[in-house]
């Protein structure tokens, strides 16, 4: 895995290599930013937290462990920093809009397919996903969007691997049930509108191919 070279950067950084420190920043800053901005709407807080994270790494590097999972370590440390400064900002100003974890962001637009029916399903699914508890969403994001192992997700969220698996399991099960309920109501709707049903036929078969 690519992680091998990442751990090399990490170890060279701990031994005092300034270039390796820069490489770690370049390698991870976007992933860290993408993750933390889902935690906290305030971009400045996120940037400050990343700043503090790297400054601390540098300051205390002699105490750092040479053998860590770099990605999980950085994500986990940043998570704590963001939560910390979010709390502080709540103390100071009520205005800072804070969300605990969001999968979709307002600034992102989704790839839309030519297939309207499929788009509708995906939009519905996205909306249902966003309604999940925030820890479930975070687990989904780390596991599938960031393609991390259960071990890594557990380390970041500071929970056991078993509870991690449970979070994912519950999230998916919940999604399935919500979508099934949704489908039943849709079928009823279609049954009362036989004209639309024939129109929908070719589209449905096309969506099967995707």
């Amino acid at each position, binding site marked *: 895995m690519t992680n091998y070279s990442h751990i090399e950067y990490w170890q060279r950084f701990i031994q005092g290599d300034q270039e390796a420190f*820069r490489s770690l*920043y370049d390698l991870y*800053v*976007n*992933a860290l*930013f*993408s993750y933390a*901005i889902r935690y906290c709407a305030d971009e400045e807080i996120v*940037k400050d937290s*990343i*700043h503090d994270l*790297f*400054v*601390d790494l*540098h*300051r*205390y590097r002699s105490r750092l*462990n040479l053998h860590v999972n770099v990605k999980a370590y950085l994500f986990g*440390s940043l998570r*704590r*920093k963001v*939560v*910390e400064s979010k*709390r*502080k900002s709540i*103390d100071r100003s009520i205005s800072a809009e804070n969300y605990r974890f969001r*999968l*979709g*962001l307002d*600034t*992102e637009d*989704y*790839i839309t397919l030519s297939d309207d029916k499929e788009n509708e*399903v*995906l939009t519905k*699914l*996205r909306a249902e*996903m966003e309604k999940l508890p925030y*820890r479930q969403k975070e687990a*989904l*994001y780390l596991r*599938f*969007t960031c*393609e991390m192992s*259960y071990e890594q997700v557990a380390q970041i969220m*500071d*929970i056991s691997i078993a509870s991690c*698996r449970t979070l*994912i*399991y*519950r999230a*998916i*099960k919940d*999604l*399935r049930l919500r*979508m099934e309920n949704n489908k039943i109501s849709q079928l009823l709707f279609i049954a009362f509108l036989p004209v639309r049903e024939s129109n929908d036929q070719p589209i449905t078969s096309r969506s*099967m191919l995707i």
Partner: protein
Amino acid sequence: MERKVEDILSGDSPREDLDKEAAADVRKLGDRILNILQSTKSLRLSSEAHVTLWTRIEETTKNARRRNRQIKILRYSAVACAFIALSFFFWNRQDPDISYNSLLYNAMNNQNLITEEQEVSMRHGDGQNVRISDGQEVIDLSLDQKYENARKKTSTFNTLTVPYGKRIEVILPDNSKVWLNAGSQLTFPTIFDAAERRVYLEGEGYFDVESDVKRPFYVHTANLEVKVLGTTFNISSYKDDPFASTVLLSGEIELQGAGETLFEPQILKPGTAAVLRKDSKHLSISNETVEDHISWRQKQLILKNTPLAEITTRLERVYNTDITVESTSGSNETFSGRLDLTQPLTSLLTTLYNPVEYQLQQEERRITIKKK
């Protein structure tokens, strides 16, 4: 039995298993879920922001290095002076700033999220997290010290987390006792320095410090710093409280501001309480409310013209329950008296909110109070 989509996606190789063994409709939903999550775009910093942020990091680390070098030079000259003066004063002294900074760093970094914790737990310096079983009321670390000391000289930091609804007593390596109230965290070294003892507290603790004139004991919090030689006192510094306070029961303590709070160091006398309002940074010292501050140890809450909002915040912590009041009319009301914290929460709330006027709704760890 057919595997459902949640069985497959929570497995170790969801993609492969979906393709291999899922029924058509299961695969379809599974694919959709995976596609949405995997096509969630990774947000990138603009190249400008990327460079700006790096420059900031580089500047800060460079400044820190320069400062370190200056400190080193100063320290060397101090040592030289000490030699010349044949004084041993500077000789074995640890730089207090450095030990304080590493304590603070560890306190910030070792923190678990109190709200996510269910059990009392201790995070060790090496990242290991130990959960303390439910029935245990005392954690005794004074015994560890003896063989720990002999085995290794390097000290790391432990952070003890007490979630809402729990409390615990801990005996520190120097035999000092601390009772930690619900929703608190205490960070302390596995071995105290020869010259001083420093701990960092977030939340509330009742300290019974082992007397050691040669090793002052410091309690650091976000707004206050307490220096003691050997006394009994209570200190409360919750993030979500508008105040921080210290109450001295015996001995003598020196109180200082920390962080953004600055005031002249104050010496507290036994039986007095110092309360800092966080917004005005105003410190008031009185000897009236001592008992109220420490009543939590007797599982009581003493109220003296205490605003209703403050009472509910305290009850939320003790009972680990969200209390939502959907009415603003009574929030300025104050109460005096004694609440028995061994009683169920709902019965306490009915004393505060007259059931004739208010309606209580409980749903797991959430209570909503509505005006009828």
